[in-house]
């Protein structure tokens, strides 16, 4: 290969091949509702912590599905468990349990 004097940056494209399906299935076993999300955004919109710090369950689920589990934990660390998201979710997802499960599953070593 010719050395042109620069390096190619890592692609910012999401690589779905790197998705950890086994891990996600294990998470889905603890909290089956994680599969139900339609990403409507009610949870993020009603989040009490959301006005101070980016907190989003919808995004967290998306991050896990896009092989970016650390991002998911970062998005949920600020959660105060107030429950407003659970009250507004149109799919009736047990969001607080999902948050605790994600924090436990991906947030503890």
């Amino acid at each position, binding site marked *: 290969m010719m050395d042109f004097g620069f390096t190619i940056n890592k692609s910012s494209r999401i690589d779905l091949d790197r998705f950890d399906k086994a891990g996600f299935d294990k998470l889905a076993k603890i909290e089956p*509702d994680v599969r139900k999300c339609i990403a409507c955004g009610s949870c993020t919109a*009603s989040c*009490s*912590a959301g*006005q*101070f*710090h980016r907190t989003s369950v919808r995004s967290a689920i998306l991050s896990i599905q896009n092989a970016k589990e650390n991002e998911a*934990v970062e998005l949920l*660390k*600020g*959660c*105060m*468990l*107030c*429950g*407003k998201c659970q*009250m*507004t979710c149109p799919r*009736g*997802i*047990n969001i*607080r*349990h999902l948050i*605790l499960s994600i*924090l*436990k599953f991906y*947030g*503890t070593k």
Partner: protein
Amino acid sequence: MNILASYSSIDPVSSQEFIDRIPSGYSNFVIPFVAGMLFILTYLLIGFIRVLHHVPWPDRKKFLISLITPVTIVKNIKDMVLDCLIHVKIWKRKPLLGYMHSSIAFGWFMLIVLGHIEVALFVPRHLGSISGGGLFYPIFYRFFVWVNPDHETMRGNLLFFLMDFFLLYVLSGIGLALFKRVKSIALGMKHTTKPSIPDRIGLYCLWLIFPLRLLAESFTADLSGGSFLTRPMNMMFKSFFGNSLNIMPTWWAYSIVLGIFFFVMPFTRYMHIVTEVLLIMFRNAGLKVRKPRKGFAEAEIYACSSCGLCIDACPMNVQRKNLKFSSVYFIRFLRRHNNKRINDIAQKCLMCGKCLALCPVGIDSPAIRQAQRATLMNSLPYDYGYLSSRPAMSGTYPKVMYFAGCMSHLSPGIIKSMRIILKSAGIDYVFADEDGGICCGRPLMLAGRNDAASEVMKANKEMIENSGCKVLVLTCPICYKVFKEEYDLKGIKIVHHTQLLDDLIARGRIKVSKDGRPIVYHDPCDLGRGSKIYEEPRRVLAAVGELKRASKERDESICCGGSLGSLSLDHKDRGAVTEGSVASLMSGGPEEIATACPLCLRTLGEKSPVPVKDIAQIVCEHLR
């Protein structure tokens, strides 16, 4: 074998009423009883030391001081008599069940006491001393003495009568207990606990102890005296068996059953007999649950009598599949260190507190569950650094602060009504979280995330104290409970809006009109059982409409199902709980259901056939 032959050494014309038939005060049959007794006494001593060891030193100090404080001593004795013996708490709710439990407890207690009195009065040298057989003598008293037929006194006969009376009393309870196994609903219990194997052994022993005692004492009644129960039975046996050869087998059986009972006791629910006493002393000394399995919690775990009253209490048990989550099973699994099941059950609980309210021993299962949750959840990552970067409240504010809380923002009807009412009453207030605020912290606490909760609470506390307010008004009972109990806000009066409305109406600061619309009030768990506020909301509603009653209300009210206490209950199962709650409310025939909690408002509204409104909204509609 002529028993009388052994009396040749006794002076036949002795004027004593009772004569030591067996002066040594010992017979081989007492061995099983003594062995069991020694075993259980040792076990209890070790257990007590272990429990006390795990109680942290400040709590231990409190306990020791309470033992010498006169007020606490009196309260301890009072509680022991009312709860351990008479089971007042059960009588109040289900009289027949109360009779059953108290007959066995109080009856057995009186038999033991009277036995000791008899020995003290008539053959005192056998009391208390090990060599005289003090450990077992009063229990087997009737075997060892011989009543002098010409010297029976009133006192002696009275004691005989009392002994037989209490024995009959206990037997009636045993009869009810047997019947309860077959048809528990007759005694007012829809579901009753499934006993474990050791429990069964203990249960059968308990059932056998008193009939065997009756048999044994009846066989010796012609020798040692008896009354209306034992004497006739003695006559009957005499005519059947012809001689007294059957004295020994029956006394052996009685002793063996007692021995087995004591040996098996540490593994059964019957530990509650002794542990409840310790629990009462701990509780009156002000101890609280810290760790879920050791210390104070251990006393609570062993004090559980597995009676199963909590099963009917639990609102989740409208679905049979949830019976296994009841407090009694939680405690049982804790006792056996079954970690997987413990965590499952701990996370399901709605934390409504009804099991605690109905428990005759007063075991605080919700607190133990919270402690159990903390073992798993407290270590989860959190980051509330953003709290410190909020703009601080600056300027001077009115003395009254209104904190709506997270949930009230999803019920704007409450907020709008509060604004109108406060304006109408001419109260100057600051709406602290108008643009959204920080959660009060109780959901974090309920989930066992205590460290995270204290950070959130610190931020809120700063905000409130810096504002200079003197009165904090809450529309949410969850907020109210945590602000009142955990925040330690000095000099600030914490008020729930139902209390405020009650006060405003009573003092005429707002005027309301009354109509005949029938309304039923739903007691929110955290306001009713959690904070003991039952009357203020009812007074407010009676001032604006016709207040009707739900079938279960006040401390028996059924949780709406929306509680943030549960971590793993899903939407469908919560719906079943809600339906149960709505059914109880609708039995009062209302056109409207009133509630004092935004979470109850939303949850009941999902299933209720009539409109559900907050008290503030109803008062607002009736403002003049």
